[in-house]
């Protein structure tokens, strides 16, 4: 018996109803996926193999697309450099003259600072290793601001690593696969960065909202921020090293404090991923937890003469106390 002759022959469901059923099922699946989304879990296992595999595949494709753009940019720079060499030379000479006193001052300060550190026994942060990467794709919408970088776990990049360009902090790595990693920009809605105001040492939280200029929130202290203040990472919480330049404080249209990012000064093309995780990697954990009063244990044992002198003075003190009257009960 052919199928068409069977009992299902008279069963006809309108197309619109079947389509609606698929829509309802798919919407339910979407809502469940949103509820189950763990992409910003600090543990790092939220960035599952699906996302990692997808990034691994999308990376090379966008790398191919980004190549002609990069080539054209380099060609334009070359031509510009050729035609504007004289004015550029003049500008650079002026800049060198301006910067030379700063260099001398920096050397002097570094010297003084080194002495202070030696005198105080300060434990300073050692230099952080870096991995250079190129940005191969970007998402710029209101909901996501992220970039794919062409350096991944094979180059030592790990989730949480901060990324900087020549101007300042750009973002941090939120997903890593073998050769590609995803960097969340400071402007992303999910981005939160602990910062300090250089002038007043006031702390604040830099939180992105999808626009070009992230907001300064939870500013502590009255008059702690002025327009034009430099904003640096504070290093609080150990996610970023202290002192990375971020931008300049400015008032937004809505009256809130915002930050004009240094990294916006040029196209974010090459970035350097700082292979920095937290304070834990910088020193051995045992060094951070010395035993209390450990210095006392290092005193040498008394010599025979010293021991005799100590016992002699104690005996004399006891005799003097007995002669002067009733002493404390022993």
């Amino acid at each position, binding site marked *: 018996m052919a199928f068409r002759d069977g009992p299902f022959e008279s069963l006809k469901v309108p197309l619109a109803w079947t389509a609606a059923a698929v829509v309802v099922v798919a919407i339910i*699946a979407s809502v*469940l996926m949103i509820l189950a989304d763990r992409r910003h879990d600090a543990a790092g296992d939220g960035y599952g193999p699906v996302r990692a595999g997808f990034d691994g595949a999308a990376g090379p494709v966008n790398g191919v697309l980004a190549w002609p753009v990069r080539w054209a940019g380099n060609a334009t720079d070359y031509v510009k450099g050729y035609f504007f060499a004289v004015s550029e030379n003049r500008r650079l000479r002026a800049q060198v003259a301006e910067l030379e006193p700063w260099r001398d001052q920096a050397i002097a300060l570094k010297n003084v600072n080194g002495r202070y550190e030696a005198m105080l026994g300060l434990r300073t942060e050692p230099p952080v290793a870096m991995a250079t990467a190129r940005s191969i794709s970007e998402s710029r919408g209101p909901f996501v601001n992220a970039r794919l970088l062409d350096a991944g776990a094979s180059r030592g990049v790990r989730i949480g690593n901060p990324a900087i360009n020549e101007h300042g902090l750009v973002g941090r790595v939120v997903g890593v696969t073998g050769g590609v990693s995803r960097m969340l920009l400071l402007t992303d809605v999910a981005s939160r960065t602990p910062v300090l105001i250089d002038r007043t040492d006031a702390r604040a939280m830099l939180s992105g909202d999808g626009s070009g200029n992230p907001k300064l929130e939870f500013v502590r202290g009255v008059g702690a921020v002025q327009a034009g203040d430099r904003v640096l990472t504070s290093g609080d919480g150990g996610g970023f090293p202290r002192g990375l330049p971020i931008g300049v404080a400015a008032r937004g249209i809505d009256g809130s404090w915002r930050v004009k990012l240094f990294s916006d000064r040029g196209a974010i093309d090459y970035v350097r991923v700082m292979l920095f995780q937290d304070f834990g990697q910088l020193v051995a954990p045992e060094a951070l937890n010395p035993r209390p009063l450990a210095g006392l244990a290092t005193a040498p044992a008394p010599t025979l003469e010293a021991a005799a002198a100590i016992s002699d003075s104690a005996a004399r003190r006891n005799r003097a106390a007995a002669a002067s009257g009733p002493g404390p009960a022993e």
Partner: protein
Amino acid sequence: MAVRVVGPTQWVFYPALAVIAITIVLATPVELFGFKLPEPVLPLVLAFAWPLIRPSMVAPAVLFGLGLFLDLFWGGTLGLWPLCLLSVYGVVLASRNLLAGQETQILFVWYAVCALVAFVLAYLVVTVASGRAPSLLSLLGQVVPTLLLFPLADWMIQRFDDGDVRFR
């Protein structure tokens, strides 16, 4: 003359592939004179056009896949764009009888309303998921390019609506 059969390959799969390709190209990090490439939500065109062309079970399933692609490619909350796209598909499917055969201007108004619904939904989900409302100005930067894509949706409807003689 041979009967021209326009199946799902023509009006579902090829446009879906084209949308994926254009989305990937638009993600190229280009900055010319301080301006970057726009980032419209291209599958919204399909979510609007497909239910008007013909109700089908394949289209919402492919739309779900396109939404997942957007989430994975842009790195957003997984499930965000499938929800928004399928909401638009559902709304247009429900209002199909009203919209069939309407003039282009009416369709555009309806397209704008649908796009607005999708973006408001996405805005709410992202606000709840990340604990902070995205900037409205940057939202506008994505809404406007998406609205400008309406001619594509209109062209698809003109091209494929009743394109299959079996449905006449």
